[in-house]
């Protein structure tokens, strides 16, 4: 876990230094930034980790930075720390995907708990990301005909029906299907369906 990278953003130098120290003491690699702009110019994000940020900062505040990161597809989980958290802002922050919303001053155990949960989520989402990328790579290696066969198999069609739909012999369909199964690295219909549905976007857009 010590390889995890935590970025801390707070405009108050004393708070920034002390929170950075606390996370260092807990064994994280810490980067500190005194403003949202400062962070956006050196966002990092290669290694797994999370972002701990102040809610209210001059210039770009925490909620705005959260939005900016979402636009840049930076998916690192965010933990908010705030000196004056209203219910409205904390709801907005949590809706936008924040892990936790801590009111200053907070106990170390709460911050470290939130950071560790955030890093766990980052790791698991990075794992899922990798898995998805692999499946998408396999999918890309299919020929158009194999892809058609895959979609129809996944839709529950029998070989005979597929052959009729494609206007070919059932035997040819079997050959395509076998090659498709090999390329997708699955050995059963159930495995194929599971892999296929795992990469279906929830909002099945065809773009």
């Amino acid at each position, binding site marked *: 876990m010590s390889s995890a990278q935590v970025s801390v953003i707070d405009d108050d130098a004393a*708070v920034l230094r002390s929170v950075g120290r606390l996370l260092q003491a807990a064994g994280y690699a810490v980067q500190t930034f005194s403003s949202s702009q400062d962070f956006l110019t050196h966002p990092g994000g290669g290694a797994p980790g999370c972002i701990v940020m102040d809610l209210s900062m001059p210039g770009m505040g925490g909620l705005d930075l959260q939005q900016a990161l979402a636009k840049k597809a930076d998916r690192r989980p965010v933990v908010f*720390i705030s000196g004056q958290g209203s219910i409205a802002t904390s709801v907005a922050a949590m809706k936008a995907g924040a892990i936790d919303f801590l009111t200053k001053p907070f106990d170390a155990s709460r911050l470290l708990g939130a950071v560790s949960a955030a890093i766990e989520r980052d790791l698991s989402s990075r794992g899922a990301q990798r898995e998805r990328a692999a499946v998408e790579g396999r999918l890309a290696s299919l020929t158009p005909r194999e892809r058609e066969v895959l979609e129809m198999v996944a839709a529950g069609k029998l070989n005979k029906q597929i052959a009729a739909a494609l206007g070919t012999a059932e035997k040819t369909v079997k050959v395509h299907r076998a090659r498709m199964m090999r390329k997708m690295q699955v050995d059963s219909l159930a495995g194929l369906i599971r892999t296929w549905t795992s990469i279906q976007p929830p909002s099945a857009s065809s773009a």
Partner: protein
Amino acid sequence: MDVHSASQRFLGLTARRWRTGAVPGPLAQMLLVAVGYYAAARVGFAFTLQPNPISTLWPPNALLLAVLLLAPARAWWWLLAAALPAHLLIELQSGVPTAMVLGWYASNCSEALIGAALVRAFAPGPLRLDSLRKAGLFLLCAVLAAPLLSSFFDAALVRLIGWGESEYWDLVQRRFASNVLAELTVGPLILTWATFSSARLRAATPARYAEAALIFGGLFAVCLVAFDLPQIDARAAPALFYAPLPFLLWAAVRLGTPGAASAIALLTVATIGGAVSGLGPFTDRTAEDTAREMQLFLIAASVPMLLLAVALEERSRAEREAHEQRLQLTHLARVAMLGELSGGIAHELNQPLTAILSNAQAAQHFIANKTGSPQVLSEILQDIVLADLRAGEIIRRLHTLFKRGETQFRPLDMNTVVGEVLDIARGDLATRSVDVRRHLGESIPAVSGDRVELQQVLLNLVVNASEAMSAGTAPGRRVLTVCTGTEAGMVKVSVIDSGPGFPAEQHERMFEAFYTTKAQGLGLGLSISRAIVRVHNGHLWGEANPGGGASFHVTLPAA
């Protein structure tokens, strides 16, 4: 028991301002009245011009009347009763028949009762000579009506008992004049000093005491020369009457009603004392004429002085009250504004608290993991100390803003005041995502002002700007600029925002009291700010920026 509790209430009413705690009990009060009456009667006898049987000034009745005016009506009977032994003691020495002695006691008491009842009917409660209305009431009822009515009674008694050979109307007229002068001299003296706050004496500066000494010393010397020297040139006499007037005026203007009453008493004693000893300008005529002339002179000199002193005191009290109200209102607005800022202030306090807690817990981790070097730990401790000092400073500043104090003019550097104000508002500005820019001029002359009040003015402008921007401007474009500089010999502080600005018709209206466009505002901020700046001889105005937003400017004269 009844008497005691009545007296306690009486003292609660009249002696609230004595504050010494040593409040005399009812017996002590009766003793005081008796002793006072005896002494006053002695003075009255001493001021009798032989062979004229009636004193030029008869103070015992005036003393009784003044005591009744200070007491509740239920205490009157025993206060009057207290005077009887003193009356008998002194009058029976003079060989007057007992019937006449008792008759005079009755007429003396009647004067006190008539005057006190008349005054009390129009002005309830213990009388304070603190307004022209009450002074006029006192002059009409106690100085004029009481001696007049009781003199008819007194003269009738004298004729009835057959004491002396004077005519009825002659008796009425002479007793009336004597008692009018006594009421005018003794009444205000007792009334003003009995209700005088000892706090005012203690608050007086040495210069004030020196001035009082000069006034009374001068008055005494002038009276001595004018009224207590063997008369040299009779034709110079009218001019001599004017000699004490400057000192009387001086006392009335500078020393308030107690000072004026004391000066009048001194003049009266000196004038009559001189004439009784055969000195001064009133000696070249019959005793009766002398008494009448002196009485007329003293009454004519005293009434305007007394009224002048009361009028001035009434006005200065009105000014003090207005000043006090302004202070109260200023404080109220300041506290209301700090209430609006409370969220931001909590934010500001939470920062050092967070730093302290996180630093301390980081140190605990370092120590538990045995990873903390002494250098890291000492840095942590240093940061904790700094954060603690910072929190203390925030609380100290808040305390001075919350406190209610007198306006104190001191040399102030406006750049420092701006820095302090932005520190207090920092939390509010941060939670509203306002970007603060400072353009502080170098070598700005100091201004003479009250730190807290000027902080209040600037804080009000900063908070207004911050609220206007957070309501009507996108977060990235909220810029507050504070500039200081000099302009035409004045120090100028400008608070400029990038908010929605204000329509032209609000340009002056926003400085009116209770005018507000905010949902939760009192509408007092700007009107009080302008009043504060005016007290500092400066100007406060607002204008719409050409490029949007509003600017508010404060100019203050360089000290």
